[in-house]
């Protein structure tokens, strides 16, 4: 049984992909004798691998993901997205895995295509509470080294870390020739900063406090955030990574529907 997702691999299969020059160690069974007869050169026949897709869903579980302004925290929202995506993948007979990361990889479910596995992943997501500081880059690098076989990497995070380092982590996946999708989850209050009165803002990860008059900072905050998002957008585009910013006010089902439709068109 094979999944409906196209695998990034080219290898042994039934659907011819292309030719490659023979190198020492290649299986002689895959030599294309007809080409040899015509050109007197050794070529190996390559086929489109239509084996199961392995999707790794990386969910950020740092303390900043616990921020909520409308009842749904960014973590909750990320869980919904992860669950939905995992379900879609497994339902299409592909394999889905889950990684929860904060400062480091907190939990890891290797890709499987069984519903039991899906349930286990959902239990883990529900069980886990966002805490600790973020070190997204370390987690990404760790996963990039951990995953041997190329697959689809879906990172669901608020990316509240050093953008340069995070981009390097994402680029690491690309170096390993993974297909990478970044779902940048942000709360509506983070995006619009609707605060009016003077207040002390406390960082959810470091605990650092700062007293400000939000209305005076709103414009500058907007510019900073815009620059932050723009940086990711540009870096992801340069690394051929699919990047999407999501407001948690958007229903996850609506988002998933729209996003998957768009992916379908892109294919």
């Amino acid at each position, binding site marked *: 049984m094979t999944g409906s997702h196209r695998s990034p691999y080219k290898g042994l299969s039934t659907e011819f992909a292309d030719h490659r020059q023979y190198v020492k160690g290649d299986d002689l069974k895959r030599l294309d004798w007809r080409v040899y007869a015509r050109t007197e050169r050794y070529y190996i026949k390559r086929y489109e691998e239509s084996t199961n897709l392995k999707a790794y869903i990386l969910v950020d579980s740092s303390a*900043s*993901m616990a*921020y909520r302004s409308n009842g749904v925290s*960014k973590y909750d929202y990320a869980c919904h997205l992860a669950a939905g995506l995992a379900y879609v993948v497994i339902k299409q007979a592909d394999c889905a895995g889950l990684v929860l990361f904060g400062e480091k990889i907190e939990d890891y479910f290797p890709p499987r295509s069984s519903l039991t596995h899906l349930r286990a992943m959902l239990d883990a997501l529900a069980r886990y509470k966002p805490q600790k500081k973020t070190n997204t880059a370390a987690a990404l690098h760790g996963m990039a080294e951990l995953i041997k076989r190329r697959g689809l990497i879906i990172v669901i995070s*608020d990316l*509240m870390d050093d953008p340069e380092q995070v981009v390097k982590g994402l680029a690491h996946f690309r170096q390993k020739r993974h297909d990478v999708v970044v779902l940048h989850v942000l*709360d509506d*209050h*983070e*995006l*619009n*900063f*609707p*605060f*009016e*009165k*003077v*207040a*002390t*803002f*406390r*960082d*959810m*990860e*470091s605990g*650092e*406090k*700062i*007293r*400000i*008059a939000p*209305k*005076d*900072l*709103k*414009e*500058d*905050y*907007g*510019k*900073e*955030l*815009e620059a*932050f*998002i723009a940086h990711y957008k540009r870096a992801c585009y340069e690394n051929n990574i699919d990047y*999407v*910013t*999501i*407001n948690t*006010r*958007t*229903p996850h089902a*609506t*988002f998933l529907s*729209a996003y998957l439709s768009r992916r379908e068109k892109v294919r």
Partner: protein
Amino acid sequence: MFGLTPLAPWFLWGLAAVSVPVVIHMLQSPTAKIIDFPCIRFLKACQKKAVRRTRLKNILLMLLRMAIIALIAFGMAKPQRFEEQTDVLPDAPVSMVIVLDNSYSMGYVDKGRSRFEQAREAAIGLLGTLKPGDEVALLLMNEQCEPLLPEFTADHERAKAALHGAKLSVLGTNADPALREAIRLAARAGTAAHAAETRNPKSEIRNEEKQGQEKQRRRLEIHLLTDLQASAWEPVLKSGYLKNVDTKATICVTSFGRKGSANCFVESVGVAGTGPEQCSVTAQVWAVGAGSPGGVATLSVNDKPVVQETLAVRPGAPTPVTLTTRLGPSGTYRCVLSIQEDALPVDDQHFFTVKVGERSKVLVVDGDPSAIGPLAETFYLGNALNPGGAAGAEGPAPVEARIVAAAEFPAIKLDDFRTVVLCNVAALDGADLVKLEGFLREGGCVWIFLGAKANAERYNQWVFLPITLTQPVGDASKKQTFEFGETREGHALFKTGLDLRSARFWLCWGSDRASVKRDAAILQSFSNGQPALVEGAFGKGKVLLFTSTADADWSNFPLRRAFLPWVHQVVYYLSGADVRGSSFRLKEPVRFQALSTHYKERIVVTDPAGKRIVLPPPQLKGGYAECEFRETDAPGLYQVAADPAFSNSGGFGVNLNVQESVITMEDPDKIAAAAPSGLLKFVEGPKRDVVEEVKKSREGQDYWPLIFKLALLVFVIESLFGNLVSRAAKPGGLKLPLFDVLRRRNPGVS
């Protein structure tokens, strides 16, 4: 403060409330709730910039609030501003100098009333603003400053009577002396009030210090009521007097003039004889201002209009208008050239006299006659005297000449002739000489041309010869020539300025300059230093000696173009047969001159008002009797009783100095720029009531309504600014393209 005086100064204590916003600002410490937030890194990044901006906004808000409180407190103190002099109170006594322009341009009629009348009424109105104890001085302004009330007086009725008695002058304007006098008077303010005080026995003990304080507290006002003629202010602007003037007085210039006022006037008149007893009068007519007045120019002779000419005048340039008339027999004619009366009638007339001389009979005695015309001694002279030959259409020539040979002279009766011309006559002896002397005694004139035949020895025996002859001088070979040289300045013969430079002489009779007789004078010399034309007197008559020939033997003068007018000029001079106009400007001296033998009795001038003025005995200078008449103070025709030989003897006309007729208003800004700021105040007389303006300036202007309005404005600004500061920066937040896609696909979902 700022020249404002608070009427309720205790409210100024309210200014202390300005500190309230400062205290509130200092105590401002908002209680802040704690919000857990993931994106604190962004807040930290923009905190520094925002804190600085917030502080600035808060300070601005605080300042606006302080300004509101200060303005309300200041407004409640009811500040008033007293214009010009801030150190005097509204009830301070006033010292007022009124300068009334009575130049003739103030006679310009606007809406049925002259500007002078309007100004005088305004001046009387200004007197009405004075309270008992206030003092006033009055000056009239024309070309000079004429004091009407030269010292301050507290008697306002006297001042009013003086103003009623003020009359328009016929002079131009010069604001400079009047301004200087007014400022000098203002410096002496308080003298009348002090005099009134000292007359009161109760206040005799006032000490000098108190007087000084009183003087300092007085409100000093100088009011110039004028039409703001540009020509009047030119000397003021040129002198720069106002720039450095040191006075506490306020100068209020009220202008009764209007820009673009039209005026038409006669600038000058030229008279020329165009035939016997006939003259043409050419008037230069000017127009200024808007509109192009035309009309009719009328020449009146002896009070009767004799000729009219229509004219159309272009503004800004003189238009010549020529009127020709036949005057009649010899005598002096009183003439007035008038144009259609306009808003300023005084300059629409020009007065002058025309003197027509008697038709002259001239006897020319040829000492060297010839059967061949051009060879005769008198060939050129005879042609010059009768240029047209027989009588023309215009009537007989003004000069009737008869030429006889010297041999015929004994048989000629001289009673019919006014002038005898001797041309190269060798000598006259016995009865001929006695006859000629008798002719001169009776008032006849003799003109002598010399020549090769003239016998100097015999000539020098003639009692009427004005100079002693010596011998012919020059180069008969014509290699060295000489020309006319110096002339006697101011002599009637040289007024027309004939150009005689082309004449070349190679011979003339020399004469001894030291031998010039007492009643004689050298009128013209040759360039070699020898006298050319010598005038002398004998009896009632005149003798004129020309030391060269009448023909072309000794010079080329008879062949030159200037010879003919020169001959006519001399004959007219000798016989008085020409037509001459005579007119002068106001204040211009009129000179009477004649050979001293003609002075018999004192010259009497009758002015246009009928006043007889007997001139002092004339001074005798170089054989001439000269005196001047300086009282040309009124325009019009002046009659003169004097020997006809005197210049201007028949009478003369006196006319305005028409510079004042060019009605051009000076720009008030230009005058204000030439004075220290605030010294001059301008009121447009025709539009605004100067009396009301003065009352308002003394009463002071309430500023508190303006201050309250300002406070309200600041309040509105503070509200808007506060609202702007507290408003959220930008509604809607970030725009993400994906959300737009989602919103479009799911319209119900926010």
